[in-house]
């Protein structure tokens, strides 16, 4: 078996470009979801807000301006084939250099502080939030998902006892959406993790946001739960921007994993109508 060389410089260049593109062009799946909910919305105010949101991403693409001024913390996911050798540099440094260049050369906002308490801006949006998975094969899949914090701050995790069951989880998801109200720029997108450990559950929720909104969980039970929760959230009446209306959320994605006999963790990673994710394979 041969080892494939992928240069750190190529990873840097790719991530630089992906940071800019992810912030200027909304993914097709989110556009489709917005169009569908715009058609189905019947409130005058709600419809106007959705129209403005659609106009906004069109202006962003036409004028190459970021869709949202919160160009996010750069969440970078790497699926690294085990037959790949990264040459010419440190993988993590290559990723951060790509983010540094993308956010500087792309006129994106630098929104990262070095220390959570002492809060001095790093000036180049690094470090990125990096997750690396080793997978079979000789490819490198890169996903860049800039994440704004207006919605991130409305996220929640709860460690249920197993007796809470499905009803406990449903109630928690609904309660998290209702509590978020107008804050996360509704219409929202909810990434939900169920199972795992405390940390894995939160990561599942984040990964759920990478999945296109026109996809569904492969397990029919969870695919149904995704639909049910989306319908329930859209009965809350919060509406676009919280001004009242049907369209409170345009997507609910659920990811699950095995957990402990004593546990039922559930995490909701809140996102907005500018849910950005872009993937490329090297």
């Amino acid at each position, binding site marked *: 078996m041969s080892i494939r060389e992928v240069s750190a410089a190529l990873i840097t260049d790719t991530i630089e470009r992906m940071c800019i593109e992810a912030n200027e062009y909304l993914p097709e799946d989110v556009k489709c979801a917005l169009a569908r909910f715009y058609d189905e919305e019947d409130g005058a105010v709600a419809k106007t807000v959705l129209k403005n949101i659609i106009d906004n991403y069109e202006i962003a693409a036409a004028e190459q301006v970021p869709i949202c001024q919160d160009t996010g913390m750069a969440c970078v996911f790497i699926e690294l084939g085990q037959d790949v050798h990264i040459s010419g540099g440190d993988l993590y440094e290559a990723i951060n250099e790509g983010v540094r260049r993308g956010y500087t050369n792309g006129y994106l906002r630098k929104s990262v502080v070095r220390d959570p308490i002492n809060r001095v801006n790093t000036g180049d949006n690094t470090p990125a939030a990096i997750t690396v998975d080793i997978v079979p094969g000789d490819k490198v899949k890169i996903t860049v998902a800039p994440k704004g914090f207006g919605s991130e701050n409305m996220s929640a995790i709860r460690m249920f006892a197993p007796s809470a069951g499905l009803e406990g989880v449903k109630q928690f998801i609904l309660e998290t959406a209702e509590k978020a109200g107008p804050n*996360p720029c509704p219409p929202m997108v909810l990434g939900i993790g169920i199972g795992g450990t405390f940390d894995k559950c939160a990561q599942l929720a984040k990964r759920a946001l990478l999945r296109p909104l026109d996809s569904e969980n492969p397990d029919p039970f969870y695919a149904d739960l995704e639909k049910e929760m989306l319908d329930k959230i859209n009965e809350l009446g919060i509406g676009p921007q*919280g001004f009242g209306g049907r369209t409170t959320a345009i997507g609910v994605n659920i990811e699950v994993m095995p957990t402990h006999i004593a546990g039922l963790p559930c995490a909701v990673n809140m996102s907005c109508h500018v849910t950005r994710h872009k993937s490329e394979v090297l």
Partner: protein
Amino acid sequence: MDKHIKLPLTEELAKTLHAGDNVYLTGVIYTSRDAGHKRMCETLARGEKLPIDPQDATIYYVGPTPAKPGKVIGSAGPTTSYRMDAYAPTMLSVGARGMIGKGARSEEVIDAMKKYSGVYFGAIGGAGALLAKCIKSAEIVDYEDLGAEALRKLYVEDMPLVVVIDSYGNNLYETGRKEYLDNHI
């Protein structure tokens, strides 16, 4: 109801605005968010003067992206307002009257708005490219070291906003949702 408003936001003008009004704002506004508000309130606590005249001023909670060459500003939509709740009553008490942001406000802020005739406008969160088109000039007044959070003076024309909370304490986030639920569910 659609209203075209010329700033500054005097007390008299503020009292004509009602939750749910669509407003197109024209005039000078200032930008400030978390770090800038903290600094302004620390300045006031020391008994010193602010870098801006707060009387009848409107503050936009925004941290824009950098302007590309030849552009006035980058993407410039509102940030979530509750993070400024700790500072807003102080700003209202020295004369600032308008606030532009998105999301819920605390009871303390709403009480201060009633006391000082303040108005809270909602801009569409996430619509930074659309809102930037209304911004005709931008200059840094102070706090340049804060980068995106620097204190900026903007001139806006027909900036599309909605009155979310008016100077009487009426709140569109409550009434808008209630109206939907009463009619649909």
